[in-house]
């Protein structure tokens, strides 16, 4: 099952932010953000609430137009138009349509593209299996727990077999057990499918576990104060118990504090 959705190395897509600015007022917005996620990597944006992390994700999804700069998608060293890149987005809140059951919610992106209904539902079922909800396809969102709804949202982001996955605080509203479960799911997706992930989060553990590179935002308007490279031995659940993981947490925490101090100073 993994083989048919795994991205071959040459099909993988990288994401590059080139001096992206998007201002909402004199002190709110994001200014001159430059960052890069190589194909198959996870790039995380961290910072205080309201600093503009989500705006960076929305710019990549073309839901927001930057005032200046651009987001470039790169395949095999050359730029590819955004329309040619399959992008999956998992919003902070799952945004499921309450009148559609889980399966039909997941199948929605394919239906909108005109994929025949039976085929779309088959693929939606596969995506639900991938997030561990294979037997919940007929349940309406209202009958699912918060964590399950989040996973349905993740399955919907995956159903079109994206090269780039944009995750906006995917675990912010979840309890610790469900949070770890979903983080493990995302890590497996990265390892198995080679998807490039842009992660927006304010959870240090999440960034330490999933990201290859963390950009810390600070200031008003926000800019990238620091970029940290995270070395992963493996992306398994056991990594959380390792000493290097604890060291990464400490490093991120310290950098966040420094950024906050610089921002307020």
């Amino acid at each position, binding site marked *: 099952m993994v083989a048919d959705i795994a991205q071959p190395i040459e099909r993988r897509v990288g994401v590059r932010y080139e001096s992206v600015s998007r201002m909402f007022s004199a002190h709110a917005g994001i200014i001159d953000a430059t960052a890069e996620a190589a194909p198959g990597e996870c790039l995380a944006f961290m910072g205080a609430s309201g600093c503009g992390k989500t705006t960076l994700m929305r710019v990549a*999804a073309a*839901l927001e137009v930057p005032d200046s700069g651009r987001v470039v998608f790169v395949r095999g060293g050359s730029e590819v138009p955004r329309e040619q890149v399959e992008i999956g987005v998992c919003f902070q809140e799952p*945004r499921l*349509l309450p*009148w559609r059951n889980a399966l039909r919610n997941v199948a*929605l992106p394919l*239906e*909108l*593209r005109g994929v025949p209904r039976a085929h779309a539902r088959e693929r939606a079922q596969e995506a639900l299996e991938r997030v561990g909800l294979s037997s919940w396809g007929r349940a309406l*969102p209202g009958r699912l727990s918060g964590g399950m709804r989040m996973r349905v949202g993740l399955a919907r982001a995956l159903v079109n077999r994206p090269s780039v996955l944009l995750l906006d605080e995917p675990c912010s509203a979840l309890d610790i057990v469900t949070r770890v479960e979903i983080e493990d799911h995302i890590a497996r997706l990265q390892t198995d499918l080679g998807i490039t992930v842009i992660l927006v989060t304010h959870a240090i553990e999440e960034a330490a576990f999933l990201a290859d590179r963390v950009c810390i935002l600070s200031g008003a308007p926000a800019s990238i104060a620091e970029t940290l490279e995270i070395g992963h031995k493996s992306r398994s659940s056991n990594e959380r118990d390792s000493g290097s993981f604890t060291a990464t947490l400490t490093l991120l925490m310290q950098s966040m504090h420094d950024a906050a101090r610089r921002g307020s100073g």
Partner: protein
Amino acid sequence: MKRLVDRVWPAALVIAAIVLAWDAAVRLFEIPAYLAPSPWAVVEVIAERRESLVAACWSTACTSAAGLVIACVAGVCAGAVIASNTLLYRGVYPIASFLQTVPLIAVAPLLVIWLGYGAPPTTAAAALVAVFPVLANTIDGLRGVDPAWKEVFALYHASRWQRWRKLEIPAALPHIVTGVRIATGLSVIGSIVGEFVSGYAGDRAPIGMVVMSAMRESRTDIVFAAIALSSLVGLALFACVSFVGGWLLRGWHPSGTA
């Protein structure tokens, strides 16, 4: 069954209390029958004239239901068109709001002039009075779709038609169902007002005409019987609409059936 009984008994108790209080008041104050008959006199007259009263109810129910269907189709279609364009919304919606304040009783004679006597003008009167809540709620529902859902559709490059069919109409459905529920009671009122002006006497006379002829004969018991039965017509239509609405919203909206 137990659930149904649990739901019905409080209302049944209130109705029984009102009937008993009404009967007691008629007896205690010796109110003459032409002013207020006792509830038992009303029951008696219903039993006596059941054939003509059932026919009257049926006639009124048919025109009310037809008017309601026309109002639903016209309200949803016009609402969808108006909601789709801001300029149209700004141009047409205030006029529609103004028109709904024109009293139906003043318009009913016009309907007779245009459509003649009998069912066509009463159906038109029912549709006319019922269309606004459907129209207004459709517009509110379509214009109030959660922007977060719209973004999901924008993200996957949904066409205008796909957005309308798969997002806006289902999202607006709870509003539309509420509009239709309000319109149901109004359609019966519209139908009876239409009958006052355009109805016809005889065996198949609708409720509005039964009320008018009973009033002329000072048969208050028949007027009361007609009022009670017209309420039953409204209640039956409302139950049908609530059933369909509850079925459409079942499982995902609080007003849907569990």
